[in-house]
């Protein structure tokens, strides 16, 4: 490597040296005088400059793509990270209230003083013109149900209150919830512009008024169960692809190259076929009036009333995703198995091992890198999968990604969607680092 670099440099800057080389006698190397190029620059510096220029040239080639990826991909990811922690709504729409609440001790169990209510009235009056104040209610409703209606009501009625106060009793008369310490605690808890609240919510944790973080009661836990289900189903799918993929990879690796190339096409065809096509065909096969159920009824294995429900549940997700991800297991396994010399098995058998024993003691241990590579790859792809669980997963077969999509496009709780996404991203990155350690991302094989 080093030698090659120098050769390259020698060529690049030949015109710089040539005079030095011709005019300088051999003794010059021993002299104290530093070697210089034609224009009197010390050779060392000229070399360093050439090297630097070479580096800059490489970077200049990479930079267009780098800038493109930064703008179209990294900034969106950064935007999502930001949305997971920013929470400007309460502080920007209730600025006076937030300032006054600083004085109030939320643990005292008493209602805030009159000045807080006065600030609230001022804030709501200002926000009522634009109707934006309801966004505060919408935001706080994620944390405490009922806040949305409270703010809608207040937005209509507070502007009609008499000027000059006192406001405390008047506001409480509008809605009893304003006499609830909990209402004020929630407003105070969510008044900072940066919050970890979405992350706590994404992990089924809640912040008590005292500032402690505690796990939600069992029946209210949604996301931990969902993460757990995603991991469990992905693990199961990975296991299924291993069980089905291993024999195929073994067959491909042991058959003569000509036959195995033809069979490899049968693996690559599903790999190249649109994901939606494969999902559609599983719907056609698995649904209640589908091909498999019809076949089972026709051979009288089941009767018409008791058709199996194999879709819109976890079974559908597992079957369809095993089929979709199987090539991702077969290909790395095959590329590892191809490199295992056939003579290993023959040697083991000739030394007296039963072929099965030879397989498990000699062949299988050699395929572990392939199992690791394929397994992690399938697992990583699986935990982030969205389309197939959304179409065939029903209720019990949906993944965490389906809830991210739900919060982005239906419930519009973008902060929570971002927090869930970031946790999932963290999980995937950890797995990729593992994958990189085992196989190296550079060695990823494509088809």
């Amino acid at each position: 490597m080093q030698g090659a670099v120098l050769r390259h440099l020698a060529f690049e800057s030949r015109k710089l040296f040539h005079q030095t080389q011709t005019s300088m006698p051999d003794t010059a190397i021993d002299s104290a005088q530093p070697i210089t190029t034609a224009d009197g620059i010390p050779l060392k510096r000229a070399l360093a400059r050439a090297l630097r220029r070479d580096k800059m040239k490489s970077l200049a080639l990479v930079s267009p793509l780098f800038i493109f990826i930064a703008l179209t991909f990294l900034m969106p990811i950064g935007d999502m990270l930001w949305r997971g922690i920013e929470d400007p709504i309460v502080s920007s729409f209730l600025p006076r209230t937030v300032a006054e609440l600083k004085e109030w001790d939320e643990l005292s169990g008493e209602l805030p003083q009159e000045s807080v209510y006065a600030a609230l009235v001022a804030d709501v009056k200002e926000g009522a013109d634009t109707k934006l104040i309801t966004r505060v209610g919408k935001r706080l409703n994620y944390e405490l149900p009922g806040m949305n209606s409270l703010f809608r009501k207040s937005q209509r009625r507070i502007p009609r209150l008499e000027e000059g106060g006192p406001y405390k009793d008047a506001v409480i008369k509008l809605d009893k919830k304003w006499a609830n310490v909990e209402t004020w605690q929630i407003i105070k808890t969510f008044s900072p512009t940066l919050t970890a609240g979405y992350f706590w919510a994404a992990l089924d944790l809640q912040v008590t008024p005292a500032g402690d973080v505690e796990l939600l009661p069992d029946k209210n836990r949604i996301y931990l169960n969902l993460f757990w289900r995603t991991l469990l189903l992905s693990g199961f799918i990975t296991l299924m692809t291993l069980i089905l993929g291993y024999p195929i990879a073994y067959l491909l690796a042991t058959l003569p190259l000509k036959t195995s190339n033809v069979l490899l096409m049968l693996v690559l065809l599903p790999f190249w076929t649109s994901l939606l096509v494969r999902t559609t065909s599983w719907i056609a096969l698995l649904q209640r009036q589908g091909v498999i159920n019809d076949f089972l009824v026709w051979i009288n294995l089941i009767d018409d009333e008791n058709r199996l429900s194999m879709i819109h549940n976890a079974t559908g997700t597992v079957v369809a995703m095993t089929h979709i991800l199987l090539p991702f297991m077969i290909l790395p396994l095959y590329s590892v198995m191809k490199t295992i010399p056939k003579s290993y098995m023959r040697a083991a058998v000739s030394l007296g091992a039963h072929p099965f024993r030879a397989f498990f003691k000699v062949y299988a241990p050699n395929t572990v890198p392939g199992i690791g590579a394929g397994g992690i790859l399938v697992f990583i792809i699986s935990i982030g999968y969205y389309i197939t669980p959304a179409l065939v997963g029903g209720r019990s077969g949906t993944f965490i990604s389906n809830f991210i999509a739900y919060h982005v496009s239906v419930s519009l709780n973008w902060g929570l969607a971002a927090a869930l996404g970031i946790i999932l991203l963290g999980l995937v990155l950890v797995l990729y680092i593992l994958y990189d350690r085992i196989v190296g991302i550079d060695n990823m094989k494509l088809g």
Partner: protein
Amino acid sequence: MRTKLPPYTSLIERIWHYAFRIICGLIFLFLIFPILVIVPLSFNAVPFFTFTPEMLSFDPEGYSLRWYEDFWTSVNWRGAVNNSFIIAVFSTLIATALGTVAALGLSRRNVPYRTTLMAILISPMIVPLIISACGMFFFYSRVNLQGTHLGVILAHAALGTPFVVITVTATLVGFDRSLIRAANSLGADGVTTFFKVVVPLILPGVISGALFAFITSFDEVVVILFVGSFEQRTIPWQMFSGIREHISPTILAVATLLVIFSIALLMTIELLRRRTERLRGVRA
């Protein structure tokens, strides 16, 4: 396929040998059957997703081309086909151009921070699509690119570049740099050298990278659902909403056409691969 078994194999081994073949056959069936089954189903005469008795008795009445006709005459599908090709072609062009140049840079000697750069450039392939889609939806809405063709093209180009970078870098591993110097020493300038010497040699890698980028965009459905809208609907977008809302065998007809399309693509890539292998064989 049937290799002769050596005469000393025991009975159990013989049974296992054939049992293993049968098991593998069944797994291949699992791989291929779901793809092939939609072909006959797409010629169904009635709007069902399964075989009717008429179809099973090979009654010509049971078969029809009505779903293909439906596909061909529907404005929605026609728009989807147009959009799919427009978006895939433009995003492939961007991805291929940027990816090839970057791969040339990454394959030079002493690139600073090579591993980090590579990791960043490959990241669109690593990050789960739902997360990319989410982030792009948030960010592209801020800069008014959400729901525009340009936004979708840029998003798909970003998703396609890692494939180009990987395939072209792989081709450049065996690239003999003295060829560039030879061209230079014979008086060719940088641009001439690039187009006359470098491009012809790395072309197979560039083409297969471009094919990967094309298929990535052509098949992509998560990002388009978030970044695009009805105006940008592609074939996968239309299929997804079709499966969700009103399921009709038109989807099966489209699926059949897509299977044929992917077989054609697979053949192209296989031919390219054989060509490169043959060229390498000649050189060796």
